[in-house]
Structures are given as structure tokens and as C-alpha cells.
């Protein structure tokens, strides 16, 4: 049966890669088998995973979203502005709610901007989102006047540091988000339409799919999830640095999605695959760091691992 092995490998490539990484770590990384290692990795992977889920949906429509990091910066810059404002000092609960809801709403608007550019003005996704990639971080810095905003706000910090049943809050958030979007992709009309648009846009159009709305939708979702990720980063750090939040996130998220089995030409949206991809990438980072591999060598190693992981994942088809 030629082809059988490679197909198996392709199907479970991600899991195999994860298993290999775990085994390597157990063998060489000091104190790897500790609960704290798990916590550290969960809290570090959460933002990548959340953004990767949105990215997966965008890529499923044959798009790409380079603006995720910039959206994180905008949302992350807004939150402290709100809860440090006089209004929030006066009404703490309302202020806290607003500092979570408003940034996410603004993020959704950013996504709407991307979506309209792509879907209604026909701008190619990489360029449409490049616009916000360039200017979004600038906007975030304009909002904060370039200042680092630091704060001590236990209520808000819960998003980043809280625990439920002993596991970090953002870990649970990832699980919930992944399940929700898995359901959307596999069980709902909208999900099926995402795949149809990515699989063959003209056919989708002919079968009555509101192609533009679907496309706009995925960019809005991606931006919304990025907004949430931005809030988490700010909450963990108790500081918001518009210049840095979400820096290079787009590359991590895209790599996660692809390592997780998403096809860049669209038509596939393996949500759990993307989360798995994020976990793999996180674990690679962790392994290199914990074993003291020099930064420049780590870059080369990471490059090799990404190529290998995707190679295994893609399988070979005729």
C-alpha cells in the first residue's frame, strides 16, 4: 500500500511531532515533568492559540491576516486607558467591564475595516491587512502618546493571572474558544460557508453564499480574538506597551495554523489543529530556551523545525 504510511503521518503528523517534542524534553530538559512547567506553557501559549484560531478561519477563506499583532496593540493600549480613567475610578465595576468590552469592540471594528477592504473593495488580503499592520501600532502609540502604561489592577489582571481549578484562566479561555469555533466550522451554516468560499469562491457565489459577508466575518472574528489576546498580554504584564504588544504575533499565528494542517489556499479550517500547532511552536520555543540554546542558533533550529513539521503535515498527494 504505497501512500498509506505518508497519509497516516500527514493525518497525525501534529500529534506525532508533539509526542516527539515531549519525549525529547522529558529526556533532556531539567524539571520538565512539573506542574509549573505546564502552567508556564499554558499561559505562554494561550495568546498564540487564540489568535491562531482566528487566523485559521481567515486562511480558510484563502485570506491572511497580518494585522493581528497591531490589533492586539490597539486593544491592549485601550484597556488601561479606560480603567485608569476618572470614570472607571468612580465606577469600578462599570469601568472594568468597559475596559474589556470597549477594546474588543474596537478590535472588531479594525477587523471590519480589513474585511471591507478585502471583501468589498477587492484588495488582496496580505495588502489589506498590511495597511493596519503598519498603521495600527502607530494608532495604539498615538492613543497612549507612546507611553508605557503601568498599573496595578487585580480585577483586570485576573484575565492574565487568574486560575480556575488550578489551571490558568487563559488556558480555559483557549479551550472554550476552540470548542466554540470548532462547532461553528463543523456544524453551522456560517462555518460551511467559510469553507466553501475558500474552496471555490465562484462556486460559493453561484450557490447563493453571501461571499462578501462571510469574508468580512472572518476578519472581524480574527480581529476580535486578537483583541482578547491583547487584553491577556496586558493583564499578565500589568503594563501596556503599545510598541511591543503582539509583536511578530502574525508569524507565530500563521505558523501555528499551517503546522496544524490549515491549507494556505483555503478550504480547510482545522481549529484544534491550529491549537495543536500553537502548542508545538510554544514547546519548541520552550525547549530551546530551557536548554540554553543561543538565540541565533535557536532561530536556525526553529526554521528547521517549522519546515519539517509542515513537510510531515502536508503529506504528499498526487
Amino acid at each position, binding site marked *: 500500500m504505497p501512500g498509506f504510511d505518508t497519509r497516516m503521518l500527514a493525518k497525525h503528523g501534529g500529534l506525532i511531532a508533539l509526542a516527539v517534542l515531549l519525549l525529547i524534553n522529558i529526556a533532556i530538559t531539567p524539571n520538565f515533568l512539573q506542574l509549573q512547567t505546564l502552567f508556564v506553557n499554558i499561559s505562554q501559549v494561550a495568546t498564540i492559540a487564540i489568535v491562531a484560531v482566528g487566523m485559521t478561519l481567515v486562511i480558510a477563506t484563502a485570506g491572511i491576516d497580518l494585522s493581528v499583532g497591531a490589533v492586539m496593540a490597539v486593544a491592549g493600549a485601550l484597556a488601561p486607558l479606560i480603567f485608569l480613567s476618572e470614570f472607571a475610578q468612580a465606577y469600578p465595576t462599570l469601568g472594568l467591564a468597559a475596559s474589556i468590552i470597549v477594546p474588543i469592540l474596537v478590535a472588531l471594528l479594525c477587523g471590519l475595516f480589513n474585511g471591507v477592504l478585502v471583501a468589498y473593495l477587492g484588495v488582496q488580503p496580505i495588502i489589506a491587512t498590511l495597511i493596519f499592520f503598519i498603521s495600527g501600532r502607530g494608532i495604539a502609540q498615538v492613543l497612549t502618546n507612546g507611553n508605557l502604561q503601568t498599573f496595578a489592577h487585580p480585577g483586570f489582571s485576573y484575565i492574565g493571572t487568574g486560575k480556575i481549578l488550578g489551571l490558568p484562566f487563559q488556558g480555559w479561555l483557549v479551550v472554550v474558544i476552540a470548542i466554540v469555533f470548532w462547532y461553528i466550522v463543523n456544524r453551522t451554516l456560517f462555518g460551511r460557508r467559510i469553507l466553501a468560499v475558500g474552496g471555490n469562491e465562484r462556486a460559493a457565489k453561484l450557490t447563493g453564499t453571501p461571499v462578501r459577508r462571510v469574508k468580512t466575518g472572518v476578519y472581524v472574528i480574527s480581529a476580535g480574538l486578537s483583541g482578547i489576546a491583547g487584553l491577556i498580554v496586558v493583564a499578565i504584564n*500589568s503594563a501596556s506597551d503599545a510598541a511591543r*504588544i503582539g509583536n511578530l504575533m502574525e508569524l507565530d499565528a500563521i505558523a501555528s495554523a499551517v503546522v496544524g494542517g490549515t491549507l494556505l489556499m483555503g478550504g480547510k479550517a482545522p481549529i484544534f489543529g491550529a491549537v495543536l500547532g500553537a502548542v508545538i511552536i510554544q514547546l519548541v520555543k520552550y525547549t530551546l530556551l530551557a536548554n540554553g540554546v543561543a538565540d*541565533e542558533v535557536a532561530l536556525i533550529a526553529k526554521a528547521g523545525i517549522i519546515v519539517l513539521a509542515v513537510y510531515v503535515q502536508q503529506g504528499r498527494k498526487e
Partner: protein
Amino acid sequence: EPPPLAQKERYKVGFSQMESNNPWRIAETKSFHDTAEACNWDLIATDAAGSAAKQVADVDSMIAQGIDVLFLPPREEKPLIPAVMKAQAAGIPTFLVDRSVDPNVAKAGEHYVSFLGSDFIDQGKRVAEWVIENFEGDKGIIVELEGTTGSSPANDRKSGFDDNILKDDRFEIVASQTGDFARDMGRQVMETLLQAHPDVNIVYAHNDEMAIGAIQALELAGRKPGEDVLVVSIDGTRDALQAIIDGKMGVTVESSPFFGPLACEIMGKYAAGESIPPWVKVEDRIFTKENAADHIDEAY
């Protein structure tokens, strides 16, 4: 000989900032803007967004605009030499600010007037000396959080610290990884290194932002920064001073971004024909428990 500077009522002054992605740089730029009014400058400020090549192009465009004097914090030691040379060729006196250029090629008093700034190696050295003096245990297990890989402050702060701390054999550096001068990265790297090296009791960060990130990582892991782990770094930001006051951090060596007033002063002297030393050293203070509270209000 660097070109002379005429005495004028108002000067067209070029300031070519290298990047604006951290509070330190932003404070520095702001200091130049704040000085402009008082010092009678028409300030042209550019931003090279972290690219040495763009910084040269920025300087070029300021030369084209006919500036009288150039203040340049060179992003890199060697790649900015052409900018210095071109300014000289165009008859524009240049002052290097906060970082210098390769002394083998371009020399103060010859290609440019002077370098205003502190010594990164010395900063690292002073941190090391403070640690040697103040560390109370028998064995110092050190984790070092480096700045952006390959950048000159990262290289210099590393060698200044490493060379000196290792002279005392109580100390050992078990891990040294980049945190990219950023708080979030610093935290993540510290979280990871803490797992691999739970016995660490000293953290040396190349800037305060990473130090604060490291403190957060320590606290999240249930450690007590300041008690069982000594955190030391460089910069003197407000957050760092607060951390020192709160007892979470041991020391931060100042690396002040407020170059505007100094620039104004030195430029005035130069225009008046006074001789300027090749290196106008900035006296970096050192902030500890003793003086942090006194200075926190001037910090940025």
C-alpha cells in the same frame, strides 16, 4: 577637524532618532523636543524605526535640508559612520548621543565633535560590582536577560557585567538568553529559565523593562523577588525605582535619556569656540534602596 559652528540666533538642528519602540527612546526624543524651545532650535526630528540604513538616509535628508548641527544616536557602531562622514563633508558639526561609532574609523574631534553619553560596558561593570559587594549568600546562581541580540548595548552590558562578576568565583551564570529589551519577553524567558534553573538567586537584566518582567515571572512562580532572588538591572525607570522601594529589586544603574539640556549646553559652548572633550561623559547615578525614593519623581 570637525566643521565649526557659527554663532546664530536660531539654529536648524537635526536629531535622528533610531527607533521609538521603548520608553527610553521616547523619553530621549521628548527631551530634545522639550529643549528645542528654550534653546532656540528649529528641530527636525526623524525616526529610523530600528534600521541603521534608514537612519543614514534620514541624516541624508536632513543634510539636504541644510541643518546647522546634527545630533545622532547611532543605531549601530559601524553602519552609521557614513552618516557622520557625510555630515562632515557637508560642513555640519555632528554630536553623537548615547551611543558611539566605531572609533577605529571615525574619531571625535576629527570627524565629529564629541560623544555625549555613558559607557554601556561601565554600566554592566557597575552592576557587577554592586552585586559582588551586596550579595549575601555563598553561591550566586545568575540568570542574565540580554537585550536585543546583536545590539551594541546588549553586547556591551553583557561583557561589562560578565567580565567582572566572574572574577569572583562565588558567581556562576547558568543561563543567558535574550528578552529583546521588552517586558513581556523578559517575563516569558524568565518563566522558562526559572523552570530549568530553579536554584537561581540572581537575575541580571540588561534593562529595567525586562527586570520588571522577570519580577512578575518570579512572583507568578511563587518566588519572592528581593528576598530569595536578587534582581538587578540598568536604566532607572520609574517602575524600577518603585520596585526598589518595594524591596523587589536590588539596584538599577542609571542610563539617563534626558540628553536635550546637555546637548544644548555643549552646542552653545562649541559655537562659542570652546574646546569640547571627545567624550562628554554623563555621570550615571546608581539607584538603590537608599536613594530610590528621592529620585522617583524625576524618573520617566
